[in-house]
């Protein structure tokens, strides 16, 4: 039983790292194939996106029952996270619209950023569930 769970864990971790590498590859290719490195900022937004959630979630004190829960902090974290995600989408679109990068570079960087962010989300979800069990 535990061996099955362990193999499942290992497989999913390996798969997630594979997907993460694929996302980084897509973003770096979107920069390198066309010779300008503007789409690299997409990685920064997607990496920074879960950060306010974590920080403000800790501030809100959802973990310990004794301290009173302050929903304002958690809401600020959610708000900033949503803002970051849409920034990650919109930055390549705006860059492509301003003819700074080409449309294929835009598509590649958006899909790469989505893969990176999806990996981060599913990884944290996975470990959160792992902690609770």
């Amino acid at each position, binding site marked *: 039983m535990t061996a099955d769970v362990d193999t499942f864990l290992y497989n999913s971790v390996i798969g997630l790292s594979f997907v993460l590498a694929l996302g980084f590859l897509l973003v770096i290719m979107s920069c390198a194939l066309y010779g300008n490195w503007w789409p690299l900022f997409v990685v920064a937004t997607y990496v920074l996106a879960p950060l306010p959630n974590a920080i403000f979630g800790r501030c809100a004190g959802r973990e310990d029952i004794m301290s009173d829960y302050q*929903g304002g902090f958690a809401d600020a974290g959610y*708000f900033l996270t949503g803002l970051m995600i849409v920034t990650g989408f919109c930055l390549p679109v705006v860059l492509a619209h*301003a003819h700074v990068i080409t449309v294929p570079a835009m598509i590649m960087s958006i899909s790469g950023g989505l893969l990176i962010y999806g990996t981060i989300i599913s990884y944290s979800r996975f470990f959160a569930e792992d902690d609770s069990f």
Partner: protein
Amino acid sequence: MSSQWNLNEHHKRICLFPIPRIPRLGPRARDAGVYISGALFALGWWFFIDAAIRSKNWNYDDGYKKTSVQFVDWVPGICSTLGMIVINCIDKAALRGDSFSFSSGGGTSVAWKARVFLFVGFAFMAGGLAGSVSILCIKYLISGYGEPFVSWGIYNVVQNAAIMTSAAILWVAQNTESEYQYNFAI
């Protein structure tokens, strides 16, 4: 049905018609609402930034009348954002401070101040939306500019509408604030 339409006589209402209350969301929908609100806020500002960038490096050689995104176009978005900040800085509990009105209790003046702040915030936001529409009309439509220039004014309206929708969604989401606290208080 009676809970939604406020028909019980315990709840005093001012209007003759029953006004539906703001729906109470579950905790999951509440979190999703806050996410969507942040996303809409960013989307609105990115629309405007796109218009500003395109106006900055627009090639004016091909026979158009000249116009560009100036500081006037920034004002409605700044007003909307300020209004949204003011609205969300208000403690929602302070608004419901005096359910027993006309008494000179301690909570009355706090609720009154909170409502003044709320009014100022909503006035800022409505002013931002109205200002963006008026800029679209006065600066772009009446002057008879061509298609790419009008789209900058339209993006301005889209920006302010998105910020206002975002503030509305955040308001509805934060009205259900006490659910989680309630669960833990018990």
